[in-house]
């Protein structure tokens, strides 16, 4: 990933590459059902499932909410039904939370189809320290360290709130090369941090299915990718999106 960006930078450097906006007529396919389910071990966070449909590429909206879906999460013994919260396709329940070591099954019945997914909750890992870094082009970044537990396979996802607002970042990490080490993650979102930003950083322990989803999602964002494809989802029946039952640790940081 990193080397690809580097190679592209070299190409641009040698050639003085330029960019231009163009129009291409795209075949519109779909719509496709998109399901995004999150179940945290933090009891302050309700279980939430976002049920939507994909939009045409040229649409000015990027999703269409789906209503009247039957959404349930089960831990094998108890099944909880999530209620549609607003007209945006968000389904919530304050009654169910992730418990480390357990697996959860999400079922969504919508538009006559049943979509299912299972996600397992792994033990939380604490954030060690957070500090300011800058990129090679002097962009404001943020980095943090944590100690990877030795001898177990771990997968991580990063969550970030800036001044109380959740920002979408698709950063995931594994410990394939760093088992038991002090690991550093550079947070490189699509925006710049400002001085005095109040940042709430979370480190989610996720399972392999969730990690693979985001890993494959990020492969498409590389400009040099040979053939982009939809990420590998842990939801059945061809739905786009993922279901993530996780444990989380958070740490506050005021951007210097």
């Amino acid at each position, binding site marked *: 990933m990193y080397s690809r960006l580097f190679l592209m930078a070299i190409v641009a450097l040698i050639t003085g590459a330029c960019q231009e906006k163009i129009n291409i007529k795209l075949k519109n396919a779909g719509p*496709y059902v998109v399901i995004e389910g999150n179940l945290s071990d933090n009891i302050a966070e309700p279980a939430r499932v976002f049920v939507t449909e994909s939009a045409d590429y040229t649409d000015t909206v990027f999703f269409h909410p789906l209503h009247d879906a039957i959404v349930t999460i089960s831990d094998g013994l108890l099944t909880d039904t999530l209620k549609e919260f607003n007209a945006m396709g968000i389904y919530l329940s304050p009654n169910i939370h992730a418990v480390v070591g357990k697996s959860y099954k999400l079922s969504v019945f919508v538009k006559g189809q049943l979509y299912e997914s299972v996600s397992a909750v792994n033990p939380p890992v604490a954030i060690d320290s957070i500090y300011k870094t800058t990129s090679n082009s002097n962009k404001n970044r943020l980095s943090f360290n944590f100690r990877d537990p030795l001898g177990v396979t771990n997968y991580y996802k990063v969550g970030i709130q800036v001044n109380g607002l959740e920002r979408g*970042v698709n950063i995931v990490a594994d410990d394939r090369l760093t088992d038991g080490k*002090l690991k*550093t993650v550079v947070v490189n979102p699509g925006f710049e941090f400002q001085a005095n930003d109040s940042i709430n950083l979370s480190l989610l322990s996720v399972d392999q299915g969730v990690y693979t989803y985001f890993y*494959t999602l990020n492969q498409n964002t590389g400009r040099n990718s*040979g053939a982009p494809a939809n990420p590998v989802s842990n939801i059945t029946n061809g739905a786009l999106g993922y279901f993530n039952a996780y444990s989380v640790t958070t740490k506050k940081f005021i951007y210097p």
Partner: protein
Amino acid sequence: MRKIKYSLHCFLLAVFIFTAQLLAAQTSFTISGSVTDAGNGEELIGTSVTVKGSAGIGTVANGYGFYSLTLPKGNYVIVYHYLGFSDIEKDIKLESNQQINVKLQQAQRELKQVEISAHKNDNLKKAEMGVSRLDMKELERIPVFFGERDILKSIQLLPGVKSAGEGNSGFNVRGGGTDQNLILLDEAPVYNASHLLGFFSTFNSDAVKDVTLYKGNSPAEFGGRLSSTLDIKMKEGNDKKYVISAGIGIVSSRLSIEGPIVKEKGSFIITGRRTYADAFLPLIPARNGNTSFKNSTLYFYDINAKANYRIGKKDRVFLSGYFGRDKFGIKNQTSFSIDYGNLTGTLRWNHIFSSKLFSNTSFIVNDFDYTVEINSLFADLKIRSVIFDYNFKQDFSYYSNAKNAFKFGLLSTFHTIQPGNVVSNDTARANRLSLTKKYGWENGIYVQHEWTPNNKLQVSTGLRLSTFSSTGPSTFYTYNKEGVATDSTYMKLGKIGKTHVNWEPRFTLSYNFLPDHSIKFAYARNTQNVHQLSNSLIGSPTDQWILSSNNVKPEIADQVSLGYYLNFWKNRFEFSIEGYYKHLWNQIDYKNGAVLRANELVESQLIYGTGRAYGAEFFLKKKTGKFTGWISYTFSRTERTFKEINDGKYYPAKQDRTHDLSVVLLYQVLPRLSLSATFVFYTGNAVTFPSGKYFVNGTIQNVYTERNGYRMPNYHRLDFGLNYDLKTRKTFEHSIAFSIYNLYARKNAYTIQFQPNKDDPRQSEIIMTYLFRIVPSLTYNLKFTVPSSKKKVTDVQ
């Protein structure tokens, strides 16, 4: 093992039949010898040696300039012909075997324009199809890119050969992948033939004598890649005089020194080249406070060296080598560098056993390796990968009589692949990761028979037996259907594991039914046991090579082709149409989301499918006169099918291009001034574009529905070139070459991205990146010849 034994029996039987045929020869004698350039002593590969008045009887000098022609007792006039040289005719009274070494004089330019003769239709008679030879003289005049003549970019102007991308030296032949070309430099395989991410090829054209491309119908002596063989032979060096030549360009310079070791017995040549693109890096203005270019490295260099020596009349030894490196680096908070290159070495021994039997023995080593270093906050590590081969090659040519010739021999290669090992300098941050080295032993035994029953028909039949064995010490894994490793076996040093055996028949027939017309038919099977895994748009030097194994089967391709050839207007023009159909088995791709790098279980990430490619290639060439050049047009389809992609339906491969047109025009305005132009047009590559978008994790993502369902915009470009020879003296020549790449500044799409607008994410944008507008370049070439001590000074060029 049993399979091999059976195969060997069959092979020996075939050899026996051929030998029996040899014994049936009548009382006749053999003329043999070598053909060289009188000016510098270079062998003239492919010189035709014919008998005047007996159409169809003759031979062709081999890759070492050796020829042998056996004729019944009698009187003959033997004609030696090589394009661009004056013919030599020898009267021969054949009563015993004779050795005749011939030196051809280069024709004067004025002469060249009028020379037209009847026997120059070798292209019609020869039982070879899909073969292109690059004329190195022509190459000097074609417009260039950044001032560097490039053989790999020039072959892309030939029918059936497609560029892998803008300014790229990678190429696709008849729908094959870029890794399916066997690129040989003095018989040594070159795994990565590109410098500077493909903008330059590894071959310094100053060091190159002969370039032949076989588009899937290679003679049986070549094997190991599916789509083509590109046989590049380095110059031997002038064996009469010392010559120094140099070229000074905007981004690179070249220097070459050649001369005799012992006059007319041995010679050497050393050529070197270096780019200095990074000298300009500090000039790049800091953008957005980005100053990283100041500390960057970006250059390549390469050295070709060769020496040869004749020991007596029957033996000759050659030692040749290539060494090239590319270095890129950025030093900053995050430092990153890549260092990669090829190394090849070839030691050869030619021996003439008899006037009819020629032998060549080669020991070859080749290496490709890269090192990536990352030094940043999160890691301080080094990734290193090496491919190393030892090769032994033994080839025999037996010129039985004027109607029959045989070639047979073997090639044995021992491959070692060290996949990207991760060496962490800071073990507090990352672990070392050592991947199992892979070893493979590849063998090929072949026999080929060239038969000319009469002056109209020529038949070439070949058979190659290819084997590939995984060998220890290494660990081999077994995977279940889901790609999970279920078992692993460790094989000790010297143990031979899974062996793949393949027969590769090759057949070509040429029928010269009218004096200027011929038709040809060919069939060939090729197999491949080294495979490259690439998931990038432009090939990257870090793309991994893997070997066939218990999981990965050899790739196989069958190609049939049919062609019609016509020479007209007294051989001034050459025209051909070749149609081909190729079927490819065991093609390799990877799963969605595959982890290819630093993965011990990389074979679990692969999927296997089939491919098909078909097309028609049209070629029209004007060979002589002030105005020369060619038009090549290819109509083709290239498709792949994998169970896991597009529901198993055939889809266009990335390199599928319906139309591909190249026009090359060369005009000799004055004896010292030539102009040239090339025009290229091709259908855009097949690509995957989104067909919708959705919202997930607070980000907008694209929906993809089918692999390669869209096309890049059509590509076209016009280049212009000018060559002017400055005042020339006997010992000193110099010239300037001026080129303009992309004369009308076409913005050819390099990549197309689909992304939300930065300011208004509800709006989705399509952004096209293009690399070049107009690229002018200027090169100054000079050549200095040390005057010969002899009175008579022969003209060099």
